[in-house]
């Protein structure tokens, strides 16, 4: 059984994201939204994204500091419906 979560990016794009199909960053890219990243491995923090609403699960443990209210989409998947600002 797969669950799909609704992810609203930058208040204008609505994505249906299946957490078993890859990271949040990959979902953002697949939707054609400009993405920001460097290492794609959770240690550089370049993909830092504001997590306005919802929860994420980390599939790889991030080494970059995650400030409250942020998430690192390169190594996480949605755990609920999300609202994020990825700019």
């Amino acid at each position, binding site marked *: 059984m797969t669950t799909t979560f609704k992810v609203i990016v930058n208040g204008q794009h609505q994505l249906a994201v299946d957490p078993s199909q890859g990271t949040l960053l990959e979902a953002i890219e697949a939707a054609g939204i400009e993405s920001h990243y460097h290492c794609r491995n959770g240690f550089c923090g370049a993909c830092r994204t504001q997590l306005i609403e919802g929860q994420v699960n980390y599939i790889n443990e991030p080494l*970059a500091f995650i400030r409250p209210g942020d998430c690192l989409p390169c190594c996480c998947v949605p755990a609920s419906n999300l609202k994020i600002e990825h700019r």
Partner: protein
Amino acid sequence: MSYSTFNQTASNPLLEPMFFGNSVNVARYDQQKHVIFEKLIEKQLSFFWRPEEIDVSRDRVDFNSLTDSEKHIFISNLKYQTLLDSVQGRSPNIALLPIVSIPELETWIETWSFSETIHSRSYTHILRNLFTDPSEVFEDIVINTEIQKRATDISRYYDDLIFYTQLWQTHGEGTVEVLGEQHTVSLRDLKKKLFLCINSVNALEAVRFYVSFACTFAFAERDLMEGNSKIIRLIARDENLHLSSTQQIINLWQYGKDDPEMREIAEELREDAYQIFMSAVEQEKQWAHYLFKHGSMIGLNEEILCQYVEYIANMRMQAIGFDAPFKQRSNPLPWMNKYLVSDNVQVAPQEAEISSYLVGQIDNEVSAADLGGFEL
């Protein structure tokens, strides 16, 4: 307060602050106050590489076909990077080891600095291949005024912290006269110097390398100087990890997860930290100007490079709690990213050594989900 290489006071490292507590005695890693530094050590060790693994012999042919302005760009960047890594290969050790108080951070600092010495060795590897005698390039690093300006700014926070730590460790708090000059030493002031120093190093790791990286990868985009670009990719991957550590330290202080006095200092010196970052950004832009003074190169000019510095700076400043100061919100050099992805390091084994192979990478965590695909 005087430094001891094996502090015989029985202290609990789980209760020590990162800096200015009891100096570390037993190098033990079975328990950590800040587990992140242990993880950074593991990651850095798994990234281990040597410059000799990368074949740079084709670069000499490419280099000779570059225009004079392109040669200026290429060599100047190598000089600047040599300066940065000369500083970083020693300064974290000299400035931070005498005052560090937890074993995992002490070892992280040593691991970090060691990896910077590998970077320095790779610049020699690159230059020795390009020139029969690279002495002229190395000698110019000390006398080139553009590089000097940067050296002054990079080393002054370190030097200040080192000097006052020495006074504190030999004379304690109070006023002391050295060579006819009066110096007032207090632990609070030392902590302030440490805060500024870490912010300056953070800015260095965050933005100072990126103008040079962009030039290197712009050559690689034209299939030029590819050996050099492979080395710089490995360096960029390491630098990203080092940056992560300075961001961790600053955030741990800001969020009061370490020394409570450092939290106060972080608030008190917020404006100074901001200015340190902004002046590093300004200097990088001036560097871009210096690089392109004899002419641009295909795919890159001063303006677009300055936009890239602003783009990166926004990202880095938000990571330590500042608002993004620049308007540049989209990436003006999207091709840069493919060189910065850590897993992408090399995919054509027939061309050269495979550098994406992680030496000593350990992953022994198995969850039930890993066996999900099995059926009996």
